[in-house]
């Protein structure tokens, strides 16, 4: 994450991430999604400075890059919290108790979908199906999948994250 660091460090971090991504995939227009995805993984989101640099290196207008970055759910154009909670809001989770879990989750972190907490700890998102519907309802905290969750388990699960 790049929060709370000095401006100079920030731009250095961004530059390093962009270079690493381009080294991996090549300065190729067709590889824009993998490049942006890589930067997103390294920085937690895609800052505008990163788009500027990619634009120059891949020789593609920034507008096109932004249109791609803002289209895909896994790419973020704004900073996110230290931990990202993604709750599945699709029918298979919904009909087996997902609705109650979702209410409990919003209540617990005091956020609505799409919001980030003031202390920068949590970002709460709803997501489409994660493909583990056999254990619905399902939520994802960062990379960890939790299945068969009940409203009362929410505090325990979230207490594992600093």
């Amino acid at each position, binding site marked *: 994450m790049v929060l709370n660091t000095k401006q100079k460090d920030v731009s250095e971090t961004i530059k390093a991430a962009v270079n690493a991504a381009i080294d991996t995939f090549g300065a190729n*227009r*067709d*590889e*824009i*999604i*993998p490049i*942006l*995805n890589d930067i997103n993984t390294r920085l937690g989101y895609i800052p505008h400075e990163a788009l500027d640099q990619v634009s120059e290196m891949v020789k593609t207008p920034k507008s096109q890059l932004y*249109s*791609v970055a803002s*289209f*895909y*759910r*896994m*790419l973020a154009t704004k900073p996110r919290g230290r931990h990202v909670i993604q709750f599945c*809001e*699709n*029918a*298979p989770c*919904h*009909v*087996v108790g997902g609705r109650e879990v979702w209410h409990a989750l919003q209540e617990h972190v005091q956020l609505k979908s799409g919001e980030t907490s003031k202390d920068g700890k949590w970002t709460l998102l*709803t*997501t*489409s*199906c*994660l*493909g*583990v*519907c*056999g*254990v*619905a309802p399902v939520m994802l905290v960062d*990379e*960890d*999948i*939790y*299945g068969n969750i009940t409203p009362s388990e929410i505090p325990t699960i979230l207490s594992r994250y600093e």
Partner: protein
Amino acid sequence: MKTYRSMVLVSSDPISMERGAQQIVENLQKELEQFGISEEVSLTMVGDVGRHDALPLVIVYPEAAIYGPVKPEDIHHIVEEHLYKGRIVNEMLAASRELSGKIAWLSARKGTLPAEKRIVLQRAGLIDPGNIEDYIINEGYEALGKVVSNMKPAEVIEEIIKSGLRGRGGAGFPTGLKWKFVSQAKGDRKYVVCNADESEPGTFKDRLILEGDPFSILEAMTIAGFAVGATDGYIYIRGEYNLARKRLEAAIVQAKEMGFLGKNIFGTDFSFELHLHSGAGAYICGEETALLESIEGNRGEPRARPPYPTTHGLWGKPTLINNVETLANIPAIIREGAAWFKSIGTPSSPGTKVYTILGNVNVTGLIEVPMGITLREVITIYAKGMKNNAAFKLAQTGGSSGSIIPSTMQDTPMDFDSFNKAGVALGSGALLICEEDTCIVDLTKVLMNFFRVESCGKCTPCRIGNERSFDILHRISEGLGTANDLKDLEEISDNLFQLSNCGLGQTSGTPIRDMLKYFKAEVEAHIRLKVCPAGVCAMSGQKVHA
């Protein structure tokens, strides 16, 4: 090849990994060493085997004993009792789903019911997906060898046409015909694309195939490349499917080393390269032209069709796009012959179908069964009935864009033609089974919310139609519905069918259409009586923003 006395498999799907599967494997290694039997027992991690009720699993062959959910500290006891002393630890077996906790399809081979028929998942859960030798021993690459050394491309296509295989992505287009179109299309380069952007809610069949048997997809794509004259293949895999992607990456490396991919396959003139492309989270990219846009590095917005991808696909070249499950059938058809394939399933829809069973039933998970099975059979036999003996109210088939069918239709055979006749979409094979306490307005609202979020926004009927219908349903669920709402919903759903640019928009009106067709009285109760008969909707009488 080395032989073992026992084979131990540990499930390594994301849920199992999260619950300590890695530690279980390490403990197994340690305990096997300590009992001095590590040379006699093979230890393998396998993908998802369809038993989501008891993860992580430890499966021991030849007894086919399934232990689960297993904790790392249980391993000492299992190794000592079962593997060292030869006694199955009955109290640790996974809850009986099929006969005495044994794998359903293994029992089926012994002639006991309920049977499954596994073609596309025949190796999933049995072989090590990270080892090409395991695949080869289990009939892997036999089909490709036969194709490149003994068959002409036209003969391969003829065989697929004769098999009657139809696309398993949802639309059910005859696969052989699609291959023929691409082979006849003019172009200096051609491509084969595997659509692994599985994001239809409630569907995870492709993930299981990719995690459990990645080489089968590589083999099938190479056969397809040979048949249609393509030099390159792309697998477009959903961004969220990390494990499947890793398995595919490793599989591609191994296949190249073995000479099953790359230049001069099997020492012939035929060369074929495979590339892996990850999605970045967009349901629309499962639509084939949106998928092509995404591979090319653009927003995943569908193209206007025609021209179809068979003539103007990836970078404007003729492109064959097949779903994962469709491709997984190909090696078996080549190996066993079209006549064998036609003998399974129904005459109009040969072969098997993988279904994911979800919702208010006793057993969720997935099954692969011959085409033509009925919903009643699925619920009573495979899902072991409704939870808490509740009454079955409706099923939602094929993910969000599929159909909602009432209990009166549960005896319709599930195959492409029977479903078409009944006006139902088979779709991706997801079966969301709902009990009497499900509210149709609430369910439809959730489905329309999905389309509202996932619409790419390119064409107006879909962008605005889904938003509007969600708003109306939301109002109805708060007790603010008006008499005009039904008419408006019907109009919007008609517009979606007729005016949308792509398959997403054209099918997004289905939940509304089915709701009005089968459950109109329930919707009217919300509007006229301000009552939710199932007691689900808030009916607050207040405007609430969603």
